[in-house]
């Protein structure tokens, strides 16, 4: 048997791309890493494996604690982590969802080709940067009041439709129709709502971005047809989450859990895994609050997408409808949802925690929107500014291997501190423009250095593993044209 050891943590190779950390000590279940040897070498370099082992201690965790191919060290639960816990006898863990609830990605299509955009890149990147709020204190597309925030938390993209920020087609192409039925705005604190009201329709900063891309390759014609993708087509990718409102909600519940369920917390190896016992008042409240934050994040991305449509209208002097600027799909990266999965032949309702991981339901699954049910759910995997992104579809093996999940991006390789030592923002920006024809505009050079292509893992390798395992199948590849960052 092939084994690998990193800092005293020994992994056994189950089969190609599947590595198991057998159950030992207080671990409730074994853990698995889905990676090639090259990715595993990178995963083993920081505390990812230790954090994955810690995640196996969550009460009611089922099957395996999982690390996706893009996994890296986070806080508490690793980024790229998937953990499913029983909704009756387990727990729900805000720390295993993360602070940025429903941080995610949506892709909008257009009928423009790369040739239509060439020559307009500079104008487009400047117009997007000027019109899409980003950075700290950049405001939002909508200056909301408390009633607006309440309505967004409760009704999600339905609110955006009623207010003229969305069209029906946006809802039918979003997970859950853009509205979580379990949202409970009353479980979101006033403090969180105060933070959210000035940030409705804003990118934020860090690794969040908006990118105009062109489709460079199609791997599965039938699925690409169903998604409406073809070579040379221009698409827009939006990556952000629930902003300060979601961050505050996670913080609030970590502290509430610490105060009320300190005994449970004392048995967990990392306080950041804080979990509320299933069925407890706090578990119900957090679930309602988290679902409300999911709605907020969807509306956030919807408002940005609406603003992008307006920017394209001005730059290309045509209506957005005539450019067919329709939503392909919206995927969440930080989420814990009640889902039904078959575990050892038995159907069970589980909270599936995905932290830096994407849901990847296959063809035929009832929760895949009707538009895609015959081919599988779209999955959008952003790469770095200098590498391609991918569109995948939920793979047949995802329900058996990963509770219907796959990777969420390229995954960081290098700290921001190190990135700033190795890269100079202006140089990265100029090289991207001159060598790769990628136009980047950011709030600061430091942000560009911290997000330089070299700080990310090889997205091709991440997607290769996902495709080979059948958890997310390659459909198309895209390459950046313009990128704005907060």
């Amino acid at each position: 048997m092939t084994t690998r050891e990193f800092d005293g943590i020994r992994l056994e190779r189950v089969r190609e791309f599947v590595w198991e950390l057998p159950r030992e000590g207080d671990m409730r279940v074994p853990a698995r890493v889905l990676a090639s040897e090259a990715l595993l070498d990178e995963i083993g370099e920081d505390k990812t494996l230790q954090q994955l082992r810690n995640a196996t201690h969550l009460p009611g965790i089922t099957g395996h604690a999982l690390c996706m191919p893009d996994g890296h060290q986070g806080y508490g639960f690793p980024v790229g982590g998937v953990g499913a816990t029983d909704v009756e006898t387990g727990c729900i863990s805000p720390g295993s969802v993360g602070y940025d609830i429903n941080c995610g990605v949506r892709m909008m299509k257009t009928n423009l080709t790369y040739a239509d955009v060439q020559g307009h890149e500079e104008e487009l990147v400047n117009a997007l940067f000027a019109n899409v709020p980003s950075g700290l204190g950049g405001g939002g597309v909508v200056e909301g009041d408390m009633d607006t925030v309440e309505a967004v938390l409760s009704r999600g993209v339905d609110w955006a439709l009623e207010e003229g920020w969305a069209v029906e087609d946006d809802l039918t192409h979003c997970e859950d129709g853009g509205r979580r039925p379990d949202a409970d705005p009353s479980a979101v604190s006033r403090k969180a709502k105060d933070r959210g009201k000035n940030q409705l329709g804003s990118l934020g900063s860090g690794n969040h971005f908006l990118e105009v891309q062109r489709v460079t390759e199609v791997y599965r014609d039938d699925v690409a047809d169903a998604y409406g993708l073809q070579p040379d087509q221009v698409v827009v990718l939006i990556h952000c989450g629930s902003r300060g409102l979601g961050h505050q909600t996670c913080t609030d519940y970590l502290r509430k859990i610490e105060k009320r369920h300190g005994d449970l917390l004392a048995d967990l190896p990392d306080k950041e895994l804080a979990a509320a016992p299933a069925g407890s008042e706090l578990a119900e409240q957090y679930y309602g609050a988290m679902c409300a934050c999911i709605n907020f994040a969807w509306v956030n991305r919807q408002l940005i997408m609406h603003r992008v449509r307006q920017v394209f209208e001005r730059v290309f002097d045509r209506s957005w409808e005539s450019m067919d600027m329709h939503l392909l799909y919206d995927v969440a990266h930080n989420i814990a949802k009640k889902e039904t999965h078959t575990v050892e032949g038995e159907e069970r309702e589980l909270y599936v925690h995905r932290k830096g991981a994407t849901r990847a339901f296959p063809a035929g699954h009832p929760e895949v929107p009707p538009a895609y049910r015959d081919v599988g759910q779209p999955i959008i995997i952003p790469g770095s500014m200098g590498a391609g992104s991918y569109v995948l579809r939920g793979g047949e093996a995802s329900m058996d291997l990963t509770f219907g999940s796959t990777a969420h991006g390229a995954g960081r390789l290098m700290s921001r501190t190190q990135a700033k030592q190795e890269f100079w923002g202006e140089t990265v920006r100029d090289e991207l423009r001159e060598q790769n024809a990628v136009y980047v505009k950011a709030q600061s050079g430091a942000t560009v250095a911290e997000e330089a292509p070299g700080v990310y893992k090889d997205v091709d390798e991440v997607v290769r593993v996902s495709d080979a395992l059948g958890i997310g199948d390659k459909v198309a590849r895209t390459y950046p044209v313009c990128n704005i960052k907060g």
Partner: protein
Amino acid sequence: MSYELRPHTADVAVAATGADLGETFAAVADGLAAATCDDVPATGERFSVTVDAEGLEALLFDYLDRLIYERDVRGVLPVANEASVHEADGEWVVEASARGVPFADVTARDVKAVTYSEMRVEETDEGWKAYVVLDV
């Protein structure tokens, strides 16, 4: 008192020291500002906050969380932090102030939240030390 930003794959860590707990807490808060912004201008008005919690780590967590909250709702970056920490009736209390630099005066990024991950607050022969990972 002093702080250092420490590398972390996805986030940013702050290691801080001080002669007493107040100095150490203020140094962590200055580290939070440094993780947000490279150059800080001398503008802005001072404001005060008082935070209490059941333990020292919880107090540091809530203090930094409060600064992040004040940042978002006041639209200012809290810098030049000052703090004093004491225990009263089993509760830990931090009385602190910061100069709030208006967002319009800085190029800053969003530190999303303070985390408990790897958090340490400990007394040593040279004074107090703290270590905090920030979600960026």
